[in-house]
Protein backbone atom coordinates (compact mmCIF):
# COMPACT_ATOMS: atom_id res chain seq x y z
CA UNK A 1 0.00 0.00 0.00
CA UNK A 2 2.51 2.52 1.15
CA UNK A 3 5.04 1.31 -1.34
CA UNK A 4 2.72 2.06 -4.20
CA UNK A 5 2.09 5.50 -2.82
CA UNK A 6 5.77 6.02 -2.25
CA UNK A 7 6.66 5.07 -5.78
CA UNK A 8 3.98 7.23 -7.27
CA UNK A 9 5.18 10.19 -5.28
CA UNK A 10 8.84 9.49 -5.93
CA UNK A 11 9.69 9.79 -2.29
CA UNK A 12 13.17 8.94 -1.12
CA UNK A 13 13.47 9.94 2.49
CA UNK A 14 12.03 6.88 4.21
CA UNK A 15 14.63 4.14 3.88
CA UNK A 16 13.48 1.57 1.40
CA UNK A 17 14.61 -1.98 2.08
CA UNK A 18 14.74 -2.73 -1.63
CA UNK A 19 17.33 -0.07 -2.23
CA UNK A 20 19.98 -2.03 -0.30
CA UNK A 21 23.07 -2.55 -2.41
CA UNK A 22 23.56 -6.04 -3.87
CA UNK A 23 26.35 -7.34 -1.62
CA UNK A 24 26.40 -5.34 1.59
CA UNK A 25 28.56 -6.39 4.52
CA UNK A 26 27.35 -6.84 8.07
CA UNK A 27 28.18 -3.24 8.97
CA UNK A 28 26.23 -1.92 6.02
CA UNK A 29 23.10 -3.97 6.75
CA UNK A 30 23.19 -2.95 10.41
CA UNK A 31 23.59 0.69 9.36
CA UNK A 32 20.52 0.21 7.15
CA UNK A 33 18.65 -1.25 10.12
CA UNK A 34 19.68 1.76 12.18
CA UNK A 35 18.33 4.12 9.53
CA UNK A 36 15.06 2.19 9.58
CA UNK A 37 14.89 2.44 13.36
CA UNK A 38 15.42 6.21 13.18
CA UNK A 39 12.51 6.48 10.76
CA UNK A 40 10.29 4.25 12.89
CA UNK A 41 10.94 6.32 16.00
CA UNK A 42 10.12 9.48 14.11
CA UNK A 43 6.97 7.96 12.60
CA UNK A 44 5.63 6.90 15.98
CA UNK A 45 5.75 10.51 17.05
CA UNK A 46 3.26 11.23 14.27
CA UNK A 47 1.26 8.08 14.86
CA UNK A 48 0.85 8.52 18.61
CA UNK A 49 -0.94 11.85 18.46
CA UNK A 50 -3.77 10.35 16.42
CA UNK A 51 -4.35 7.46 18.80
CA UNK A 52 -6.02 7.27 22.19
CA UNK A 53 -6.16 5.00 25.18
CA UNK A 54 -4.72 1.52 24.70
CA UNK A 55 -3.60 2.23 21.15
CA UNK A 56 -1.65 5.29 22.24
CA UNK A 57 -0.05 3.27 25.02
CA UNK A 58 0.88 0.62 22.47
CA UNK A 59 2.39 3.29 20.22
CA UNK A 60 4.51 4.57 23.10
CA UNK A 61 5.68 1.05 23.89
CA UNK A 62 6.52 0.45 20.24
CA UNK A 63 8.48 3.67 20.04
CA UNK A 64 10.40 2.72 23.18
CA UNK A 65 11.21 -0.67 21.66
CA UNK A 66 12.57 0.98 18.51
CA UNK A 67 14.63 3.39 20.61
CA UNK A 68 16.11 0.43 22.41
CA UNK A 69 17.08 -1.23 19.12
CA UNK A 70 18.48 2.07 17.89
CA UNK A 71 20.63 2.53 20.98
CA UNK A 72 21.99 -1.01 20.76
CA UNK A 73 22.87 -0.47 17.10
CA UNK A 74 24.54 2.86 17.84
CA UNK A 75 26.73 1.22 20.45
CA UNK A 76 27.58 -1.70 18.22
CA UNK A 77 28.34 0.37 15.12
CA UNK A 78 30.41 2.86 17.12
CA UNK A 79 32.79 0.01 17.97
CA UNK A 80 33.42 -0.69 14.30
CA UNK A 81 35.39 1.25 11.77
CA UNK A 82 32.43 2.07 9.57
CA UNK A 83 30.47 5.26 9.42
CA UNK A 84 27.48 5.44 11.74
CA UNK A 85 24.52 7.01 9.95
CA UNK A 86 23.02 10.03 11.61
CA UNK A 87 19.34 10.61 12.25
CA UNK A 88 17.46 13.09 10.11
CA UNK A 89 15.49 16.03 11.31
CA UNK A 90 12.37 14.64 9.71
CA UNK A 91 11.03 12.14 7.22
CA UNK A 92 8.53 12.52 4.42
CA UNK A 93 5.37 10.56 5.09
CA UNK A 94 4.02 8.30 2.35
CA UNK A 95 0.58 9.94 2.74
CA UNK A 96 -1.00 12.48 5.05
CA UNK A 97 -1.52 11.10 8.54
CA UNK A 98 -4.41 13.10 9.93
CA UNK A 99 -6.62 10.54 11.64
CA UNK A 100 -6.66 7.25 13.50
CA UNK A 101 -7.10 5.09 10.39
CA UNK A 102 -4.09 6.60 8.63
CA UNK A 103 -2.04 6.39 11.81
CA UNK A 104 -2.77 2.68 12.20
CA UNK A 105 -2.03 2.06 8.54
CA UNK A 106 1.30 3.83 8.88
CA UNK A 107 2.09 1.86 12.04
CA UNK A 108 1.60 -1.43 10.19
CA UNK A 109 3.75 -0.25 7.31
CA UNK A 110 6.51 1.08 9.54
CA UNK A 111 6.74 -2.25 11.32
CA UNK A 112 6.77 -4.24 8.08
CA UNK A 113 9.40 -1.90 6.63
CA UNK A 114 11.61 -2.17 9.69
CA UNK A 115 11.08 -5.92 9.73
CA UNK A 116 12.36 -5.95 6.16
CA UNK A 117 15.59 -4.24 7.12
CA UNK A 118 16.23 -6.67 9.96
CA UNK A 119 15.40 -9.56 7.69
CA UNK A 120 17.91 -8.26 5.18
CA UNK A 121 20.55 -8.37 7.91
CA UNK A 122 20.08 -12.11 8.52
CA UNK A 123 22.18 -13.43 5.60
CA UNK A 124 25.03 -11.07 6.46
CA UNK A 125 25.26 -11.91 10.14
CA UNK A 126 26.06 -14.96 12.24
CA UNK A 127 25.86 -15.95 15.88
CA UNK A 128 24.67 -13.32 18.32
CA UNK A 129 24.21 -10.69 15.61
CA UNK A 130 21.92 -12.95 13.64
CA UNK A 131 19.94 -13.81 16.77
CA UNK A 132 19.53 -10.10 17.47
CA UNK A 133 18.36 -9.49 13.92
CA UNK A 134 15.87 -12.33 14.14
CA UNK A 135 14.55 -11.09 17.48
CA UNK A 136 14.11 -7.62 16.01
CA UNK A 137 12.41 -8.99 12.89
CA UNK A 138 10.07 -11.04 15.08
CA UNK A 139 9.25 -8.08 17.33
CA UNK A 140 8.39 -5.91 14.32
CA UNK A 141 6.23 -8.66 12.85
CA UNK A 142 4.39 -9.05 16.15
CA UNK A 143 3.70 -5.33 16.39
CA UNK A 144 2.50 -5.26 12.78
CA UNK A 145 0.08 -8.07 13.63
CA UNK A 146 -1.21 -6.22 16.70
CA UNK A 147 -1.68 -3.01 14.70
CA UNK A 148 -3.60 -4.89 12.04
CA UNK A 149 -5.88 -6.25 14.72
CA UNK A 150 -6.36 -2.78 16.19
CA UNK A 151 -7.14 -1.44 12.72
CA UNK A 152 -9.57 -4.27 11.99
CA UNK A 153 -7.46 -5.57 9.11
CA UNK A 154 -7.90 -9.23 8.21
CA UNK A 155 -5.98 -11.44 8.15
CA UNK A 156 -3.80 -10.05 10.90
CA UNK A 157 -0.76 -11.99 9.70
CA UNK A 158 1.30 -12.19 6.51
CA UNK A 159 2.99 -15.40 5.32
CA UNK A 160 6.53 -13.99 5.16
CA UNK A 161 7.02 -11.03 7.53
CA UNK A 162 9.56 -8.55 6.22
CA UNK A 163 9.84 -10.08 2.78
CA UNK A 164 9.70 -7.53 -0.03
CA UNK A 165 6.38 -7.75 -1.81
Amino acid at each position, binding site marked *: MSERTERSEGREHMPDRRSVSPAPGPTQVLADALAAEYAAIWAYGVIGVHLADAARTAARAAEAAHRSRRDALLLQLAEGAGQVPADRAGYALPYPVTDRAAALRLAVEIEERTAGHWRAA*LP*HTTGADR*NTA*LAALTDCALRATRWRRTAGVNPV*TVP*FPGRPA
Partner: protein
Amino acid sequence: MVLTCPVGTGRTLSKQGRAGHSRRGLLRAGALVALGGVATPLTGCGLLDRDDAPPEPDALEPLVAESLALEARHRAAATAVPALAGRLNPIADAHRAHADEMRRMIGRPAPSGTPTPGPSGSPVTGRAAVLTELRRAEQQGQTNAARACAAAPAERAAMLGSIAAARATHVEALA
Protein backbone atom coordinates in the same frame (compact mmCIF):
# COMPACT_ATOMS: atom_id res chain seq x y z
CA MET B 1 -8.85 -53.33 -10.67
CA VAL B 2 -6.55 -55.00 -13.14
CA LEU B 3 -8.90 -57.90 -13.52
CA THR B 4 -11.82 -55.75 -14.54
CA CYS B 5 -10.02 -54.35 -17.56
CA PRO B 6 -8.89 -55.95 -20.79
CA VAL B 7 -5.28 -56.94 -20.38
CA GLY B 8 -2.93 -56.23 -23.23
CA THR B 9 -1.28 -59.63 -23.54
CA GLY B 10 -0.76 -59.41 -27.24
CA ARG B 11 -3.33 -62.08 -28.13
CA THR B 12 -6.95 -61.28 -28.75
CA LEU B 13 -9.70 -62.87 -26.80
CA SER B 14 -12.17 -62.68 -29.65
CA LYS B 15 -12.95 -66.38 -29.47
CA GLN B 16 -14.59 -65.85 -26.16
CA GLY B 17 -17.08 -63.44 -27.67
CA ARG B 18 -18.37 -60.32 -26.03
CA ALA B 19 -17.70 -61.45 -22.50
CA GLY B 20 -14.09 -60.58 -23.23
CA HIS B 21 -12.35 -62.44 -20.41
CA SER B 22 -11.25 -65.99 -20.88
CA ARG B 23 -10.10 -68.11 -17.99
CA ARG B 24 -6.66 -68.15 -19.55
CA GLY B 25 -6.72 -64.39 -19.87
CA LEU B 26 -7.63 -63.96 -16.26
CA LEU B 27 -4.87 -66.33 -15.20
CA ARG B 28 -2.42 -64.48 -17.35
CA ALA B 29 -3.47 -61.22 -15.78
CA GLY B 30 -3.05 -62.70 -12.34
CA ALA B 31 0.40 -63.87 -13.26
CA LEU B 32 1.31 -60.37 -14.41
CA VAL B 33 0.12 -58.94 -11.13
CA ALA B 34 2.15 -61.53 -9.25
CA LEU B 35 5.20 -60.79 -11.36
CA GLY B 36 4.76 -57.11 -10.77
CA GLY B 37 4.58 -57.72 -7.07
CA VAL B 38 7.84 -59.61 -7.15
CA ALA B 39 9.61 -57.40 -9.62
CA THR B 40 9.21 -54.19 -7.62
CA PRO B 41 11.20 -55.30 -4.58
CA LEU B 42 13.83 -56.80 -6.87
CA THR B 43 14.23 -53.46 -8.55
CA GLY B 44 14.47 -51.85 -5.15
CA CYS B 45 17.26 -54.21 -4.14
CA GLY B 46 19.09 -53.44 -7.35
CA LEU B 47 19.04 -49.75 -6.58
CA LEU B 48 20.21 -50.24 -3.04
CA ASP B 49 23.06 -52.46 -4.12
CA ARG B 50 24.63 -49.74 -6.18
CA ASP B 51 27.57 -47.79 -4.89
CA ASP B 52 25.71 -44.46 -4.81
CA ALA B 53 24.90 -43.46 -1.27
CA PRO B 54 21.28 -42.45 -0.76
CA PRO B 55 20.92 -38.65 -0.86
CA GLU B 56 21.46 -37.01 2.48
CA PRO B 57 18.21 -35.63 3.86
CA ASP B 58 18.19 -31.87 3.62
CA ALA B 59 18.36 -29.98 6.91
CA LEU B 60 15.09 -28.29 5.96
CA GLU B 61 13.12 -31.54 5.65
CA PRO B 62 12.00 -31.62 9.30
CA LEU B 63 10.79 -28.03 9.01
CA VAL B 64 8.89 -28.83 5.83
CA ALA B 65 7.20 -31.71 7.63
CA GLU B 66 6.44 -29.45 10.57
CA SER B 67 4.88 -26.81 8.31
CA LEU B 68 2.66 -29.43 6.68
CA ALA B 69 1.68 -30.86 10.06
CA LEU B 70 0.83 -27.37 11.31
CA GLU B 71 -1.22 -26.74 8.18
CA ALA B 72 -3.13 -29.96 8.74
CA ARG B 73 -3.78 -29.10 12.39
CA HIS B 74 -5.20 -25.70 11.49
CA ARG B 75 -7.39 -27.16 8.74
CA ALA B 76 -8.68 -29.85 11.10
CA ALA B 77 -9.37 -27.27 13.80
CA ALA B 78 -11.18 -25.03 11.31
CA THR B 79 -13.40 -27.97 10.43
CA ALA B 80 -13.99 -28.84 14.06
CA VAL B 81 -14.80 -25.26 15.07
CA PRO B 82 -16.18 -23.51 11.98
CA ALA B 83 -16.45 -20.21 13.83
CA LEU B 84 -12.64 -20.11 13.88
CA ALA B 85 -12.19 -20.90 10.18
CA GLY B 86 -11.71 -17.26 9.23
CA ARG B 87 -8.79 -17.01 11.62
CA LEU B 88 -7.29 -20.44 11.07
CA ASN B 89 -7.39 -20.83 7.31
CA PRO B 90 -5.03 -17.91 6.55
CA ILE B 91 -2.58 -19.43 9.02
CA ALA B 92 -2.93 -22.81 7.36
CA ASP B 93 -2.29 -21.12 4.00
CA ALA B 94 0.87 -19.54 5.41
CA HIS B 95 2.18 -22.91 6.57
CA ARG B 96 1.58 -24.34 3.12
CA ALA B 97 3.39 -21.37 1.57
CA HIS B 98 6.30 -21.98 3.94
CA ALA B 99 6.48 -25.65 2.97
CA ASP B 100 6.39 -24.77 -0.73
CA GLU B 101 9.10 -22.16 -0.33
CA MET B 102 11.36 -24.52 1.60
CA ARG B 103 10.86 -27.27 -0.94
CA ARG B 104 11.72 -24.86 -3.70
CA MET B 105 14.90 -24.01 -1.82
CA ILE B 106 15.72 -27.67 -1.28
CA GLY B 107 15.13 -28.23 -4.97
CA ARG B 108 12.40 -30.82 -4.62
CA PRO B 109 9.00 -30.20 -6.11
CA ALA B 110 5.96 -30.19 -3.91
CA PRO B 111 3.87 -33.33 -4.19
CA SER B 112 0.45 -32.38 -5.38
CA GLY B 113 -2.65 -33.03 -3.40
CA THR B 114 -4.18 -32.23 -0.11
CA PRO B 115 -2.21 -32.05 3.10
CA THR B 116 -1.76 -35.29 4.92
CA PRO B 117 -3.65 -35.37 8.16
CA GLY B 118 -1.02 -34.74 10.76
CA PRO B 119 -0.43 -36.81 13.85
CA SER B 120 -2.96 -34.75 15.70
CA GLY B 121 -4.00 -37.54 18.03
CA SER B 122 -7.40 -37.30 19.57
CA PRO B 123 -9.34 -34.38 18.11
CA VAL B 124 -9.56 -31.47 20.49
CA THR B 125 -12.94 -29.84 20.59
CA GLY B 126 -14.06 -26.60 22.09
CA ARG B 127 -12.94 -23.19 20.98
CA ALA B 128 -10.62 -22.39 23.90
CA ALA B 129 -8.99 -25.80 23.92
CA VAL B 130 -8.43 -25.69 20.17
CA LEU B 131 -6.74 -22.29 20.39
CA THR B 132 -4.58 -23.36 23.31
CA GLU B 133 -3.39 -26.45 21.46
CA LEU B 134 -2.61 -24.50 18.31
CA ARG B 135 -0.75 -21.79 20.23
CA ARG B 136 1.41 -24.42 21.87
CA ALA B 137 2.20 -26.00 18.50
CA GLU B 138 3.07 -22.63 16.96
CA GLN B 139 5.34 -21.74 19.88
CA GLN B 140 7.24 -24.98 19.44
CA GLY B 141 7.36 -24.30 15.72
CA GLN B 142 8.75 -20.83 16.28
CA THR B 143 11.50 -22.22 18.50
CA ASN B 144 12.42 -24.80 15.88
CA ALA B 145 12.45 -22.30 13.02
CA ALA B 146 14.52 -19.81 15.02
CA ARG B 147 17.05 -22.54 15.76
CA ALA B 148 17.18 -23.45 12.09
CA CYS B 149 17.64 -19.79 11.15
CA ALA B 150 20.56 -19.44 13.56
CA ALA B 151 22.31 -22.46 12.05
CA ALA B 152 21.39 -21.84 8.41
CA PRO B 153 23.72 -20.86 5.58
CA ALA B 154 23.36 -17.27 4.46
CA GLU B 155 21.14 -18.02 1.48
CA ARG B 156 18.50 -19.60 3.72
CA ALA B 157 18.67 -17.29 6.72
CA ALA B 158 16.19 -14.68 5.53
CA MET B 159 13.53 -17.20 4.55
CA LEU B 160 13.86 -19.08 7.84
CA GLY B 161 13.77 -15.80 9.74
CA SER B 162 10.48 -14.92 8.08
CA ILE B 163 9.09 -18.36 8.89
CA ALA B 164 10.11 -18.06 12.55
CA ALA B 165 8.59 -14.57 12.74
CA ALA B 166 5.41 -15.76 11.01
CA ARG B 167 4.97 -18.54 13.53
CA ALA B 168 5.38 -15.99 16.33
CA THR B 169 2.63 -13.87 14.78
CA HIS B 170 0.42 -16.96 14.59
CA VAL B 171 0.70 -17.32 18.36
CA GLU B 172 -0.43 -13.70 18.60
CA ALA B 173 -3.29 -14.21 16.14
CA LEU B 174 -4.50 -17.22 18.11
CA ALA B 175 -4.59 -15.33 21.41
